[in-house]
């Protein structure tokens, strides 16, 4: 009887701790780790956009005005981030962007598009993507 009371007390405390942790995580984690916009995620999965060698997003095929605006918006944001980081690392914008492009191509998932050194769009498979020989 006494034992059950203790167990209950512990479990209530544990539950409170878990709840507090969840509140903290949501408070600190949400702005920096915002996920992809659903339209962007869908365009990637459908192969309508792809990762280019220069570190920016490209439209595969013709694309409509809505997709172009989505891609432009992301590329403007990427450029701003590259510019900041390149300055901090004593590199040029192009150098930093190209390096990020190497890595972004590596991180594509099967089915997504990327630009091969030939300039052509390729669909990522389970094997390694075709990348510039300078890529790390």
């Amino acid at each position, binding site marked *: 009887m006494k034992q059950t009371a203790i167990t209950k007390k512990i479990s209530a405390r544990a539950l409170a701790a878990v709840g507090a942790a969840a509140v903290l995580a949501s408070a600190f984690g949400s702005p920096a780790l915002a996920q992809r916009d659903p339209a962007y995620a869908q365009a990637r999965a459908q192969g309508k956009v792809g990762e280019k060698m220069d570190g920016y997003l490209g439209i595969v095929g013709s694309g409509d005005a809505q997709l172009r605006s989505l891609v432009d918006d992301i590329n403007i944001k990427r450029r701003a981030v590259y510019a900041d*980081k390149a300055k901090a690392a004593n*590199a040029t914008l192009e*150098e*930093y962007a*190209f*390096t990020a492009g190497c890595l972004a191509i590596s991180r594509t998932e099967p089915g997504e598009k990327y630009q091969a050194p030939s300039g052509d769009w390729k669909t990522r498979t389970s094997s390694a993507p075709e990348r*510039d020989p*300078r890529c790390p």
Partner: protein
Amino acid sequence: MRQARQIVAARCGGTGQRGVTGRMLALLTPLCGAAVLGGCISINAPDKPIVIELNINITQEVIYRLAEDAGNTIEDNPDIF
């Protein structure tokens, strides 16, 4: 006009050749006219496609130096990568 043609033909080595008819001369005259003025420069289109390599100046050394930093940047900005 006829005189001018003859002069042009002379510069291009065509005059006095009995085989060259008036019509042929008329056809050749505009070509030779350009040659007289410009000095016979011929430009041929390359048979291979012109590839512009924009990132040629980026060295592997720099890319390796930036790789870790760029990887962190991608992870810190999941909304735009």
